């Protein structure tokens, strides 16, 4: 499923341009070393880490979209960084757990 199709289901707020990348899996974490070490390729990251370093980690880890939970605000330098790495940023008022459940349903990952 690509990012646009995913967000049609999620209805979160899209803060960046929407690249046409695939999302196959999801990973929830606020620890960047954990994301770096364990997040799957072509995934969406669910986190509250709203800053530019998250983009660096996402890009290195092959993450295509980031969902900022609890309505965390993205600082000014985060959005252009995301766009230049072709990473989409979505924002939601849900916490990490609820956002994860919603994403799991949308991606049809609940067995």
């Amino acid at each position, binding site marked *: 499923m690509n990012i646009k199709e995913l967000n049609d289901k999620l209805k979160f707020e899209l803060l960046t341009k929407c690249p046409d990348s695939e999302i196959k899996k999801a990973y929830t974490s*606020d*620890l*960047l*070393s*954990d*994301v*770096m*070490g364990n997040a799957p*390729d072509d995934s969406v990251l669910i*986190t509250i*880490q709203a*800053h*530019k*370093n*998250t983009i*660096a*980690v996402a*890009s*290195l*880890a*092959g993450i295509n979209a980031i969902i900022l939970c609890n309505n965390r605000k993205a600082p000014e*330098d985060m959005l252009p960084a995301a766009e230049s790495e072709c990473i989409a940023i979505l924002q939601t008022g849900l916490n990490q757990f609820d956002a994860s459940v919603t994403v799991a349903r949308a991606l049809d990952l609940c067995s």
Partner: protein
Amino acid sequence: MIKKLIPVYENQTPLVVLELIQGHKISEIMSRNVVSVKPDVTMREVKLMMKDRGISGMPVVRQKRLLGIISVEDLLNALEDGLMDDSVEKHMSRNPVILEEQMPVSFAIDYFENYSFNRFPVLNESKELVGMLTDRDIIMHMIKVMNGEIGRLEELAKHGHHTEIGNVIRRYAVVQNDFKNAGKASSEIKALLQEHDVDRKIIRAAATAIYELEINQVVHSLGGEIVCRISDDHVEVLARDRGPGIKNIDLALSEGFSTATDWIRSMGFGAGMGLPNIKRVSDDFRIKSSESGTEIKVIINLPEDS
């Protein structure tokens, strides 16, 4: 960008130069045999001393304490006013602008830009005068380092094969607490490996190791450098910093151990997984550390077909 007298900019200046001005301390380049005078010496004697030694200024010192600076200008004024039998203390400039020996050379360059003085006294931590720094000292040091570095580059140019993936060397300076630029080394090396169609898993491993090494230098060290060498069959990453070192390496390597501050943790770093991650993704991992710095060397093999 502000126009500067001495054109050294973080983003555009070659690494050698950045390394030279940020990576070296004033104590390494200052002159240590300082000719100083005591405060009760007369201006007449000062004139002779300066003439004999061909210098244009001297620190005035009592028991290693810096009281002021006496310059040719002060001497001329005293001469004009017929006050050559006065003590130096009466004519010196007090509260001189000083440098500290632990400051990076970049500070000194800023000082030479901001003040019109030709020399600065250098004090140690106990505020004792330990040296003098002139713009000449900086130039001499710069030439010395450049000689070494350009020699090295010439050797590389002679022997390096440039088109193949073999023997690419990249150096990155890492600055303490500079989160903004963290990730530069890893993303450039990642891009390089992608260009050469290296397997995605291996790129991820290299990127992970380099990123964690960069972040560790930013968070835990006084600054350092990351040197990446890519050859036909492996990527070698050498991370070196200037201290303060790791007290207990076994502990640092255990999952979950971190000395990061709350502030760093709140950004998502400091989970204590960096070193364990690096070890896990690398084919060879070596670490040594002392107070003067930590050195970590990591090798990630590139399989035949990539």
